[in-house]
């Protein structure tokens, strides 16, 4: 296959792109940065209508003027629904059995009452024992949250 020879110079050049990578410091810090990222994602607790709103507004950003009025109308309706339903999930999100992610930290115990969750301030604890910014890395899987390398046993 003569083509193979023809591409050899090109392939040498492409291999040089392996050098286009951050230094080792970036990768040394990446795991820690990932823990911070994941914790932030958990604690942000985006309500369902935020994602739905972003989906509806996508045509607008994409420059599709025909769909923009439709998206705007839906966004207005959605805003109304959010105002009504918003308080139900305000400030917290379920992480695991009986545990709730709250902007103030990871709740280790909570009491369910009706549709809302009552957070017991005295039971609020964080994996690091401090405020939310001091939380230790946290992972979440399909079953709920688990604290990583912490004294909390979920």
């Amino acid at each position, binding site marked *: *296959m003569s*083509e*193979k020879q*023809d*591409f050899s*110079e*090109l*392939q040498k*050049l*492409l*291999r*040089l*792109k*392996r*050098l*286009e*990578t*951050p*230094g080792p410091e970036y*990768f040394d810090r*990446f*795991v820690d*940065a*990932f823990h911070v*990222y*994941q914790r932030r*994602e958990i604690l942000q607790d985006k309500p369902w209508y935020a994602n739905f709103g972003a989906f509806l507004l*996508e045509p607008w*950003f*994409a*420059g599709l003027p025909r769909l923009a009025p439709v998206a705007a109308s839906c966004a207005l309706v959605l805003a109304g629904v959010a105002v009504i339903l918003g308080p139900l999930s305000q400030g917290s999100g379920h992480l695991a059995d009986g545990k709730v992610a709250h902007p103030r930290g990871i709740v280790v115990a909570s009491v369910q009452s009706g549709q809302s969750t009552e957070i017991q301030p005295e039971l609020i604890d964080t994996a690091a024992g401090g405020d939310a910014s001091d939380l230790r*890395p946290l*992972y*979440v*899987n*399909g*079953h709920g949250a*688990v604290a*990583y*390398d912490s004294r909390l046993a979920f």
Partner: protein
Amino acid sequence: MSAEKALPLDLENGPTDEELVASTLKGDLGAYDELIRRFQGRLYGVIYHLTSNHEDTNDLLMEVFDKAYRSLPTFRGQSSFYTWIYRIAINRSFNFLDKRKRRQGAMSLNELDEEGLPKLDLADLSPQNNPNKSIMLNELQNKLNESMLKLSNEHRTVVTLFDIQGLAHSEIAKVMGCTEGTVRSRLHYAHKQLQKSLGIYLKR
């Protein structure tokens, strides 16, 4: 046709990827850290060569590991972990590229992010270090990036996985969910396109 120097897919010592997955699912979360360390460099490379932007790559890499962690309970082990996570990375990158294309149109070279990172200096790699050659090589580097961005997502992915990452055709086929023949065909087409764009430089 195989890559001259394939990157190893498994570390020679220590637990296998699948063992680390099993440990993670059992609650040993340090095992997932180890998986991240094993794959962060390679996945960074895949995403970066698809997006050509380091900031976007960083964000996407976080998303990929997060998505993979959340989906780990559904990982059945029908494919290897590296195939599975590569797929996640590629799918996420494609979604991102589609959105970026819709919002901004084709990305211009001016948007390529080269700050704060070791710059690829082809001149240093050249045996003859004369100024004219240096200028030409930098121009070649820009032209190469520009030509890569002109390829379709699928063609750019194949070039990235084969020529830059050193994966074998069979591995690329598994990652991309297509046949080896398709991989070879895409690779041949992509090489032809790149050769066409860069031929004038490569002949010198």
